């Protein structure tokens, strides 16, 4: 297996006095998709926020590529190769599609024209509408834009929080196709999803979190076929 690009070791975090994660360990290797599944309140979204520097990790370690980056600011992490797409409020509705993409590259100066074109090639449905306000886009198109914006700085690791939530079945298929394409282009993805079956279907490996702790981990296909996982988390 290739070398780890993201390592989470013993991460403890929460909101104020409320501890949500009690020592979680996750490893993501180069160009792989890793799914995190689990019941409501397991701490899945909280984990992504902690990795991205939006919550304080204490104790615990986050290592991006080979560098320790625990509790660094999001703008520092973005420059080091980490991208994050939150579940909601993930576009600027009063800005155009092009301006949203520009915001994705805000922390870096210089000519970005090649990056725009590369991102538009990956999301051709946005290319023809680049002057339109993001607020006019449908839910699925917004999710595409949020993904596209996160790719503007060519991240090594992308954190995705429920990318398929609130999308039509047709659009869910499209989103997961794009996620697979992002992986193929060399970006590793840590994916949090309630749509666990779909998430595990596109993933290489998976972790099951419950009550802020690791419960299970393994090959995504094995987790999909695991009867306990199916009964407890997939609703099968």
């Amino acid at each position, binding site marked *: 297996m290739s070398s780890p690009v993201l390592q989470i070791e013993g991460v403890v975090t929460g*909101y*104020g006095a*409320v501890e*949500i994660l009690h020592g979680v360990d996750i490893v993501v290797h180069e160009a792989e998709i890793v799914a995190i599944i*689990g*019941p*409501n*309140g*397991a*701490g*899945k*979204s*909280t984990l992504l926020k902690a990795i991205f520097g939006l919550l304080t990790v204490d104790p615990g370690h986050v290592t991006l590529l080979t560098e320790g980056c625990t509790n660094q600011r999001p703008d520092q992490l973005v420059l080091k190769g980490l991208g994050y797409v939150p*579940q*909601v409020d993930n576009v600027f509705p009063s800005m155009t599609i092009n301006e949203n993409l520009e915001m994705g590259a805000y922390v870096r100066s210089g000519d970005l024209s090649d990056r725009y074109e590369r991102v538009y090639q990956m999301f051709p449905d946005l290319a023809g509408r680049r002057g339109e306000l993001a607020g*006019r*886009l*449908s*839910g*699925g*198109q917004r999710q595409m834009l949020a993904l596209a914006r996160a790719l503007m700085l060519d991240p090594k690791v992308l954190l995705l929080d*429920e990318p398929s*939530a*609130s*999308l*039509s*079945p*047709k*659009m*869910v*298929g499209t989103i997961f196709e794009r996620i697979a394409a992002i992986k193929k282009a060399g970006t590793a993805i840590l994916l949090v999803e*309630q749509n*666990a079956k779909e998430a595990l279907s596109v993933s290489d490996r998976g972790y099951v979190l419950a009550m802020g702790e690791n419960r299970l981990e393994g090959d995504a296909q094995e987790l999909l076929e695991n009867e306990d996982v199916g*009964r*407890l*988390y*997939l*609703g099968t």
Partner: protein
Amino acid sequence: MSSTKLPNEPSQSPAQESATEQILSIEDVTKSFGGVRAVNACTLSVARGSITGLIGPNGAGKTTLFNLITGFLKPTSGVIRFNGERIGGWPPHRIFHKGIVRTFQIPRELKSMTVIENLMLVPTNQTGERIWNSWFFPFRVSAEESQIFDRAEDLLEFVDLIDLTDEYAANLSGGQKKLLELARALMSNPQMILLDEPGAGVNRVLMAKLVTNIERLRNDLGITFFVIEHDMDLIARLCDEVIVMSEGAKLAQGTADEVRANEEVLDAYLGGQYR
């Protein structure tokens, strides 16, 4: 969850007695934002006591329709009737008092209040709201509060949030906030509940339990449900009838199996995986 007590009965009789009667009708309703018609001459109706699904592509106008029904938006034209009465253009609080409540796609919990406080706030005209009642009728105030507390606890049990009773709503996960919204909607003894994507972000196992309990609410209390949802398995298990919207208007209506077999619905919404 199956042993959970149901909330107090609403004023109307159980729906099975008049299952074919329309509780809600949308007649040629249009809502324009500038040059964009989000809802475009839409006509549909919801049967009393039914669990009716509303599906359609993102941007089809489903949430806008919910906003029109609940008074968050005023229709540009057309008529909305609830129990035969025209309610289109009324403010949300007036529509709420008529018996329609809703949940939101993105939950709007009161973050700095606890989970149970979010629910206890719902019943209107509580005796303790007036300061002189607290002075002159303390026992009445306390008895009523205790009754509301008990009902709120029953509902938290119902949505599996009972272990989080005293947690601040801000600390709940996205899925738990969805469940809190559902419980809050039930606190008001509504005749009709509009659920905007109740399954988004909610674990599939818990959602399966909620389906059973929503059916109980309909069967035992006659509450009508109108549900926006993208999870077709959930729609098929839960709904008697499904309405499909596309480009602001009704595209199709029927059982889940019927709409799944409809070519136009497959093209506009479901995609190849359902063929």
